[in-house]
């Protein structure tokens, strides 16, 4: 019974942090551009919490974030984020389990992975639909990465605080 309560508390806390990040993106980050691009933190919301969790729950959480993003954002295809975010969640979780221990640097690596995967998937979809966008797309990815990385710091810290709270006795 206690374990179930803990599980509920953990995902509610992750959900609250994610909702706060959605608010931050909508209210602040998408109101200005730097180097011609908006800071884009949505992929981070699938990647960073996943580094603190096991692959299966991380993938499911990322899937939920993807569904919400698809509902809110226009995409190349209607299920764009629903497809790519679980992959990001899974890979981020595996990254934390096999390569880098969960923490700040692991989250930073997951952020880079998430932005690269999201944008490469977009390029792939545009390429499949007959548009050769690799060059412009990779340049956009580079700019998006440079602009979003500084803004990922508060997001990383927020999830880190939430993870410390929920993994207090681990």
């Amino acid at each position, binding site marked *: 019974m206690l374990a179930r309560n803990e599980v509920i508390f953990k995902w509610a806390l992750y959900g609250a942090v994610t909702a706060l990040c959605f608010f931050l993106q*909508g209210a602040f980050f*998408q109101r200005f551009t730097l180097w*011609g*691009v*908006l800071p*884009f933190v949505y992929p981070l919301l699938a990647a960073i919490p996943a580094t603190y969790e096991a692959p299966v729950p991380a993938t499911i959480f990322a899937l939920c974030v993807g569904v919400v993003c698809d509902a*809110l*954002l*226009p*995409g*190349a295809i209607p299920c764009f984020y629903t497809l790519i975010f679980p992959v990001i969640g899974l890979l981020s979780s595996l990254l934390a389990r096999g390569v880098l221990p969960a923490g700040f640097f692991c989250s930073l690596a997951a952020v880079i992975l998430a932005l690269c995967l999201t*944008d490469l998937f*977009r390029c792939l979809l*545009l390429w499949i639909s007959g*548009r050769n*966008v690799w*060059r*412009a*797309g990779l340049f*956009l990815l580079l*700019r*998006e990465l440079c602009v979003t990385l500084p803004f990922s710091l508060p997001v990383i810290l927020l999830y880190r605080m939430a993870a410390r709270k929920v993994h207090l006795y681990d």
Partner: protein
Amino acid sequence: MKNFLKHHGLWVLFATAVIAVALTLMSVFSHTSSPLANAVNVIAAPFRAAYTAVADRFNDFQKHYRDYTGLEEENAILRRQLAEMEAEIRQAREDSEENSRLKKLLGLQDRRPDLTSDLQQAMVTEHAVTNWTSSLTINKGTSSGLEVGDCVMDDTGSLVGLVHEVGANWATVLTTVDTDTSLGAQVFRTGDLGLAQGDFSLMQEGRLRLNLLPADVSLLGGDLVVTSGLGGYYPQGLVIGSVEKVQLDPSGSDSYATLIPAVDFSQLTEVFVIRSFDPGA
């Protein structure tokens, strides 16, 4: 004292009488004042100045206090009036902007009765949300009769984009520069037909392409490009933008032009959705 008056009373009386007569005579014959009065007043003048200064100071202080409290009240009243006037000015500015928009719309209504018979005004609630699409979110949806594919224009009759997704009280509009936008277009001056399409590389620069132009097309920079209306899907004559440059396609069989959109999407606050139009007009 009694003895003094008994012995010297007469002398005192006499001296008093002499002084009184002397003072009277001096005041009669003097052109200014009597020497005694003058002497007394000369001595009294500094004292008089001193106590007048003190009294003035006290009066000033009293007046200052009275004025200060009065000024505070006046200041509060003026501040309130200023705030009210500022609010009125703001309202007047908003009214003026609205008036100018409505005037433009009225002009558009005169020019294009086919478009303006079934317009829905909407406010832009959100601009671009990702770096990979060029979209707007507006505050009207199916409850206002909007449908996917409806044309969206600004108050000058320039094309903003097409409704991409629509909900009960919201709709997403893909602008003319978005990669998913594609519409039949016509060069206003020459009548050349083409396909106005968003291009990913150009979208970053806020431009779009006019594809499928004849290889020998002779367009000039600034040539106006409007919707062709062919097929009846979209109204004819909505301004898409103007020609920036013309280039030959790598295949050599046709040309394409880079267009500058007529609308500055980042500055849009209000748009009009064409819910229906008369294709024959």
